[in-house]
């Protein structure tokens, strides 16, 4: 069904569609969102006018100088018109069909996100792109355009019923907000880091070292804190009035919801369960994450970048930490919250959560690859054998996996110490270097396992279900 026929079917009220994409109340609400967007851009236009920057129109448009503010004001006025149209024509959805996410765009976006491989590729390459383009992205105008695009995307997507179901869930609203907030602060970091890096290239100290006189805590800090406290209190009260805290049916130990999700901040760990057994994903890796984070100050020997923003002076540390925080932690929470549906299948953001969606899974372990590869059956202990008789058979069966992991965590650090991490090894000493390299390799284990799963259906490197020991 295309969007137009859907709108017309909505119009033939009382709509028979139980999941209407556009309804008058949705359009009316969007009108207010566009109005907020207009207000934001009006303020931006004002600031742009005072900054007084110009840009050159392309030749076919006359090639003359235009103030940036002129472009922003035209955009703002367009938003105002869109807003007014929504507020006044909300009851005539067909008049607003141009502001609905078109079906081909929905299909394209769902194609990209509704697949763990493509989702991971997009977030990872997006992350790399962000690092490479950081000088361009950190420009205020570029950041503002990106914010506008993200908000416009949110607005037009809200015309989709399935999108509203998943994004509008009260518990998910803070996660949507978090994506914007994390994006903003990442932008702010690059903005400040670029400035300091540029200054460092010219032999100047960081911005933070300039104009750094001592001021009295009262009023300079105490007032800021007071205003922050009032703002946070007001926000919480408004949020509490606008959105009711979720309360579902009374608990029932026999009715398992599908999907059953952990609290949202643990969804990154739950996502790891797809690739690792619970003892790794639920116990070992969280402990390693906590322990590894505590170890950071003791393995980072770089004395630069203490107390000011910089990227160039701490390239490796910041890239590694950001990779863990953005695509892995925040990215996996986003995947788990918005895309994981019934039976832990992945659904597009515009896709209906169909309980009967089927996804073929056919996973093989490394030992099966090896033994079937050389044309041998898996070594099996005679039935009913005791632990000590079984053990050698099991270890023989899985020896490739043990060797692979031994190489990965034992030999690979040595090889890296002599090649890519030579400088690190010399500065750190043996023990610190081994802790550091194992932490890095464990963080890399998640993407590596994902890629192997997708490329070769590989589930386990070591598969000993007899001992609950699957890696």
């Amino acid at each position, binding site marked *: 069904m295309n969007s137009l026929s859907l709108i017309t079917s909505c119009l033939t009220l009382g709509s028979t569609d139980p999941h209407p994409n556009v309804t008058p109340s949705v359009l009316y609400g969007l009108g207010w969102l566009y109005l907020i967007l207009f207000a934001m851009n009006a303020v931006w236009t004002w600031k742009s006018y005072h900054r007084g920057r110009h840009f050159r129109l392309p030749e076919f448009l006359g090639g003359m100088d235009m103030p940036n503010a002129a472009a922003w004001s035209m955009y703002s006025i367009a938003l105002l018109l869109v807003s007014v149209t929504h507020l006044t024509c909300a009851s005539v959805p067909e008049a607003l069909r141009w502001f609905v996410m078109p079906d081909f765009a929905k299909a394209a976006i769902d194609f990209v996100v509704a697949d763990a491989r493509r989702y991971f590729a997009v977030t990872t390459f997006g992350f790399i792109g962000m690092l490479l383009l950081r000088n361009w992205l950190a420009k205020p105008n570029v950041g503002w355009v990106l914010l506008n695009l993200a908000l416009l995307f949110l607005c037009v997507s809200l015309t989709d019923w399935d999108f509203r179901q998943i994004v509008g869930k009260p518990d998910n609203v803070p996660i949507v907000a978090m994506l914007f907030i994390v994006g903003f602060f990442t932008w702010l970091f690059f903005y400040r880091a670029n400035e300091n890096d540029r200054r460092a290239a010219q032999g100047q100290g960081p911005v933070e070292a300039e104009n750094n006189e001592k001021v009295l805590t009262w009023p300079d800090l105490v007032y800021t804190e007071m205003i922050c406290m009032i703002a946070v209190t007001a926000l919480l009260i408004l949020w509490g009035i606008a959105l009711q805290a979720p309360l579902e049916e009374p608990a029932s130990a026999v009715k398992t919801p599908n999907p059953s999700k952990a609290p949202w901040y643990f969804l990154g760990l739950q996502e790891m369960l797809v690739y690792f057994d619970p003892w790794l994903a639920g116990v070992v890796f969280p402990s390693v994450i906590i322990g590894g984070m505590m170890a950071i100050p003791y393995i980072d020997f770089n004395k630069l970048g*203490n107390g000011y*923003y910089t990227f160039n002076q701490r390239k490796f540390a910041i890239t590694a930490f950001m990779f863990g925080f953005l695509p892995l932690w925040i990215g996996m929470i986003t995947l788990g919250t918005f895309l994981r549906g019934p039976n832990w299948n992945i659904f597009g953001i515009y896709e209906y959560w169909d309980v009967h969606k089927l996804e073929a899974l056919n996973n093989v372990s490394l030992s099966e690859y090896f033994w079937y590869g050389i044309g041998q059956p898996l070594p099996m202990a005679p039935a009913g054998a005791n632990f000590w008789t079984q053990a050698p058979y099991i270890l023989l069966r899985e020896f490739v996996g043990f060797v692979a992991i031994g190489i990965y965590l034992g030999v690979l650090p040595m090889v890296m110490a002599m090649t890519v991490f030579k400088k690190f090894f010399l500065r750190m000493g043996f023990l610190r270097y081994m802790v550091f390299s194992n932490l890095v390799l464990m963080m890399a284990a998640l993407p590596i396992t994902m890629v192997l799963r997708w490329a070769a259906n590989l589930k386990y490197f070591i598969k000993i279900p007899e001992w609950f020991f699957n890696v």
Partner: protein
Amino acid sequence: MSVGDYIRDSQIWKSVFRHPAPYDRRNRVVVMLTNFFLHLHPVSIKQQGIALSYTWCMGGITFFLFLVETITGVLLMFYYRPTLEWAFNDILALRDVTTLGIMREIHRWGAHAMVITVWLHMYRVFLTGSYKPPREFNWVVGVILLKLTLLLSFTGYLLPWDQLAIWAITVGSNMARATPVLGHEGPGFQFLNLGGYDLITNASDARFLLLGSRFVGEETLNRFYILHCVAIPLAAAGLIAIHFWRVRKDGGISQPL
């Protein structure tokens, strides 16, 4: 004499605030030294160290949210009974009939916000390299506080006793079953046995310790309630005090060396 002056000249006011209002430099210094709450801060501070675009204010907001959670939490404790019979109904009543039932909304949204702000605080501290010497140990304390924040939120998730609550906790705590050596479905649990009898069973493993039962039941509700309202907040409050004290002792908010 204006009313304000009259109040400030009274014996009561002077007994509380031992000096004139902080309008001049001297009294702005004195207020920081004599006020119990303000003495957390130094008297004067580097200008760039308190710039919002440097600190993002996230640590401060996290602490403020901790206070909000404590206050709204205490108010909720007056109303809520952690038993199978009452837990869900009390929350229902908070939603539908209780005056100031909005405390639950503020408590829940504040908890979500606190998880986000504590992550952003960590993000900022990492990006400014503030964990570097001499602040290494305070970073470690901070990581523990981050974990306590998540545990506070996790234990609180169960208390409404609805479908969302028990299944989220079931999913979350099922992992403990697979704890190496200490979980009854974890690798190496066979090592702990006595004369052929396993010491680690589903009634004695790490998950049982967490839940107080073999499944999420009334014992779990009680256990999580105590953890949520007493044990973890006390631990967090203690560590927060150390965290703040160490900020001062390690040289204040980080600055270019």
